[in-house]
């Protein structure tokens, strides 16, 4: 045992995935430099490493991150697996405590303060959740098959979400939804992803095109009806692999469409609900009868999916108006371009777009950006740090940064797939999923493609908690990965 341990430690440096370490190092240092640029002051400028500057502090956090990272590499990988559940339990407890003891900062109660130091437990809960999920999947005989297995996995993911919502940090809570990718990789039906995608598309279309009417119904609803009809046909053809059913339904739809068109051309008022209700209703009845001659389960799935889609479509408006809070509704409306509000709700995003847009191809040059320095962009060194890159390093800089992130994510996925254990693989996919979510949402909101959800850009945004949270996440992965060669030796 001891001997093997020695071997392991000696080979550790060779086994560590240095490419990931290098990507990590580049990202964090580029992050600190961007923070310096974002908070640079024309009137008094001290060194990038001065502790009076945010960048200086960030460099301090980075230094400590490397210490933490290499410490994590020294811990026996088995400890992570062994203590996954206790760590997770402790973290959940900490989250709950935080929700009650933390002071209210801008409406959220997620910061624990110890004298001069404060930290955000939610940033570390990601690691704990990833470990717990990995542990679950590595349990002997566990497979994502029955309701029970889904329920356990779902609970592990949902618990931190609930705790963080309790802290009123909705943005951070949403991060955990990305773990759906992990479940998908581990056997969850792809239909869930497809349904999620449909839900997002319906949601956007219904809201975006609510203002215009066609055939007596909202244009958004009209478009979604058409999409549902197209998807029914597509599913019959490609999912159920039933050419006859697909063809018949398609012909039926086209016939009804032509009929309606003709009636409208003749001046008859055709109500949209009536038309779609009759058309889709008829096709559903046809399919329910015809399915007994075909693959019953798949056709039934198609029908259920179609009906669920219609129910979801009609619930979008209700949910939007009654479930979401006012500021959330506004942010979504601004992102969808339904309302234009550059002074208030849209201010951040509008200023962020101006800052990025002013960068051009080559950027204005390091420390030459005006928008971030003159504080036109709020949260410029934290959530909106990407603006500074866009403004000063231009299109090229943005593409390079996005490329580095993409490389890191794909590298993590590559690491995941080379793991011999479910624990390693699931943990690695958790890391990849969380990075994907952060990158997609943070950059998306800065360039106005996503509603504003206040989550940091990994490794770039200022803040020790966030940096250390990702450091934990990544270096535990590296540690697990480093001993993959020993598989079978223990």
């Amino acid at each position, binding site marked *: 045992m001891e001997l093997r341990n020695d071997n392991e430690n000696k080979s550790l440096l060779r086994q560590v995935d240095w490419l990931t370490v290098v990507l990590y190092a580049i990202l964090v240092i580029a992050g600190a430099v961007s923070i310096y640029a974002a908070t640079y002051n024309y009137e008094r400028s001290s060194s990038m490493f001065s502790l009076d500057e945010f960048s200086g502090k960030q460099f301090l956090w980075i230094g400590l991150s490397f210490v933490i990272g290499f410490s994590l590499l020294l811990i026996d990988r088995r400890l992570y697996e062994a203590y996954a559940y206790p760590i997770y339990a402790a973290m959940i407890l900490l989250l709950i405590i935080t929700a009650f003891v933390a002071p209210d900062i801008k409406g959220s109660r997620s910061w624990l303060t110890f004298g001069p130091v404060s930290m955000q437990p939610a940033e570390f809960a990601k690691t704990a959740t990833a470990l717990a999920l990995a542990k679950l999947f590595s349990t002997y005989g566990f497979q994502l098959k029955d309701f029970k297995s889904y329920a356990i996995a779902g609970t592990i993911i949902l618990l931190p979400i609930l705790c963080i919502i309790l802290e009123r940090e909705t943005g951070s809570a949403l991060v955990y939804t990305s773990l759906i*990718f992990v479940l*998908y990789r581990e056997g969850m039906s792809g239909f869930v*992803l497809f349904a999620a995608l449909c839900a997002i598309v319906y949601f956007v279309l219904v809201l975006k095109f609510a203002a215009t009417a066609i055939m007596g119904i909202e244009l958004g609803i009209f478009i979604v009806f058409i999409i549902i009809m197209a998807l029914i046909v597509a599913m019959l053809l490609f999912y159920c692999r039933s050419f006859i059913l697909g063809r018949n339904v398609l012909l039926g739809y086209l016939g009804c469409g032509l009929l309606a068109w003709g009636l409208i051309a003749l001046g008859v008022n055709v109500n949209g609900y009536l038309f779609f209700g009759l058309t889709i209703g008829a096709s559903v009845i046809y399919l329910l009868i015809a399915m007994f001659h075909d693959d019953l389960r798949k056709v039934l799935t198609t029908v259920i999916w179609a009906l669920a889609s219609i129910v979801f479509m009609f619930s979008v408006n209700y949910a939007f108006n009654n479930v979401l809070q006012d500021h959330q509704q506004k942010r979504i409306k601004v992102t969808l371009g339904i309302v234009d509000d550059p002074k208030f709700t849209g201010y951040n995003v509008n200023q962020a777009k101006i800052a990025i847009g002013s960068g051009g*191809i080559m950027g204005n040059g390091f420390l030459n950006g*005006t928008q971030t320095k*003159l504080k036109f962009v709020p949260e410029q060194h934290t959530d909106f740090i990407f603006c500074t890159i866009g403004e000063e390093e231009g299109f090229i800089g943005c593409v390079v940064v996005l490329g580095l992130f993409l490389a890191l994510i794909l590298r993590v*996925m590559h690491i995941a797939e080379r793991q011999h254990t*479910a624990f390693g693989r699931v943990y690695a996919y958790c890391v990849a999923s969380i990075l994907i979510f952060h990158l*997609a949402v943070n950059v998306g909101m800065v*360039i106005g493609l996503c509603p504003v959800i206040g989550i940091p850009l990994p490794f770039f945004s200022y803040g020790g908690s966030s940096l250390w949270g990702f450091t934990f996440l990544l270096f535990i992965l590296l540690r697990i990965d480093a001993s993959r060669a020993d598989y079978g030796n223990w």
Partner: protein
Amino acid sequence: MRKDYNLEKRKYVIGGFIVVIVAIYVFRLFNLQVADAQYKDSAQNNALLYRSSYPSRGQIYDRNDSLVVYNEPVYDLVFVPMDVEPFDTVDLCATLRMSRREFDDKWTKLNDKRTNRNYSLYTQQTLMQHLTPDDYGRIQEKLYKYPGFYIVQRIIRQYNYHVGANILGNIREVNDRDLERDSAGYYAPGDYTGDLGVEKSYERWLRGRKGKEILFRDAVGKIKGRYKDGAMDVAPIAGNDLKLSIDIELQQFGEHLMEHKIGAIVAIEPKTGEVLALVTSPNYDPALLVGKERGKNYALLSTDKNKPLFDRSIQAAYPPGSTFKPTQGLIFLQEGVVDLSTTFPCARGFHFGGMKVGCHGHGSPIALKPALQTSCNAYFCWGLKRMLDNKSKYGSTAQAFDLWKRYMVSMGYGYRLDIDLPGESRGFIPNVNYYDKMRGKDQWSALSIISISIGQGEILATPLQIANLSATIANRGYFYTPHVVKEIVGEGILKRFTERHYTMVDTSYYRPIVEGMRMAVTGGTCRKANIPGLEVCGKTGTAQNPHGKDHSVFMGFAPMNDPKIAICVFVENAGFGASFGVPIGALMIERYLNGDSPGLQSRANAMAATWTMTRSSTMPTTEISRGGNAATKPAGGTPGATAPAAPRGEAATVPNPQIQTGHGTKE
């Protein structure tokens, strides 16, 4: 170990997802950063503040290089509401010598958008304008105690000679209308611009060019530094100085002579068209329209019933009276209506067909030169009648009259001369259309309009036009457009002032007219202008006007054979030309050609003390304050203190010069 290779393929879905997301983002970034230029502009609008730096305004000199108008820095106390911190109000009031109440009042007004249209948290608000040097010194010392308060320097105009307000004009803040008309977008609210006089007409040169500073401004409007360290800044270019053609001492002398009178004096150097003096009376001290009291003083001046802001020398159109006669003589000679030996009868006037124009006693029949000498009305009536009735030569009275009108226009009448001052009147010379409209087509004849031959009837002219006529005669047939600016320093003279304008009358015909005008001085109506050693030529005018007593007019030039000054004096409601016009004209000519002398000064003082203005409507009763020392013009003493001549109040009604309001001809 389970390894499901079917599930492993799902890495492509997840990997594909993030690759697609990144691709979409790159595309979006390309649109934002490369394809769309609007964000660059927005960024500049956000971050850059363009601040003007002001050049010094050009100074004004007279023809002899005496400095007339110059700049003086004054200091305003301003504050930026955003930067103001709680301060010791009592101490500030004491420093400003202001009562607490007064201060509080002002402070609340300034900090309220409803009472202060320019209020903004981030921009300068003026608390006190034009601090006295005393105040300035005291505040400067204590300014460190009041964060958010600043002292800014401004320029005001100062005057070495308190005369010539009508020529000099003044400066004021631009108003909304100025900004609307400023198509080039030069002015910003709060800028100064010239108002009246050369300050207005030469604004382009005097103002120079504003410089531009480009500064960084942060999201709350604070200045954070210079853009590119000032590399893109533009330095202001100082305004051009002006050298007036005015002889400021002659101007001062003329204004002194016109005290207590209403009217104008215009003196021109015939050889160049340069205006030597341009006096209007009553007038005012140009320094009244400077600084804190400008608004109040301007209101007082504009409501004064003697209209001191009205420049009678160029804006008032009067009947020219007998000063018009030389023009008629010139036309008659050119047209061959008369020659020097032609005589017309004058039986104490012109009598024909029921028409009667009175005259005074002199020999009859009379030829052109003696007619000018004695200012015979009948001669010119006969002459005009002969010309307009000559249907065989001209075809019709209308055609003959049309030609006559063209002669008049060539002599500078009927249209603006385009002097380089704003507001000039065009006078009035009727044309055929005018009479057709007023009296009916073919309902008028030489006889019915005969009074125009002696400068009465519909004829109106500005004193400037009359002086210009005098210059034309002195030049024997041409004039330069009269102008008050001899040179824009650094730019030269405007080209339009260097072009000779010839009249339609041949030079040779001017000789007898000059001789006639000389005879008027040596032995005619202008004998009071016969200054030994100076060959003065002149013509009086006694212009009847419907509003009251006749205006006294004099037109002349000297010396006869090398004219250096041509002049017109117009005194409203002062009776015969000989009584005021001639002596004032003579004093002006003597002052200009012979310089000052004690004898001249005492004669001038006597003239200055003579009243023609109604006493009750004199200016000095208007209280106009100027920074503490009340300086008003015309001052000259309190009413009745020195008045050797009997007040002519009995005849004088409220002076009402006929302001030309566009009843001109449409040609």
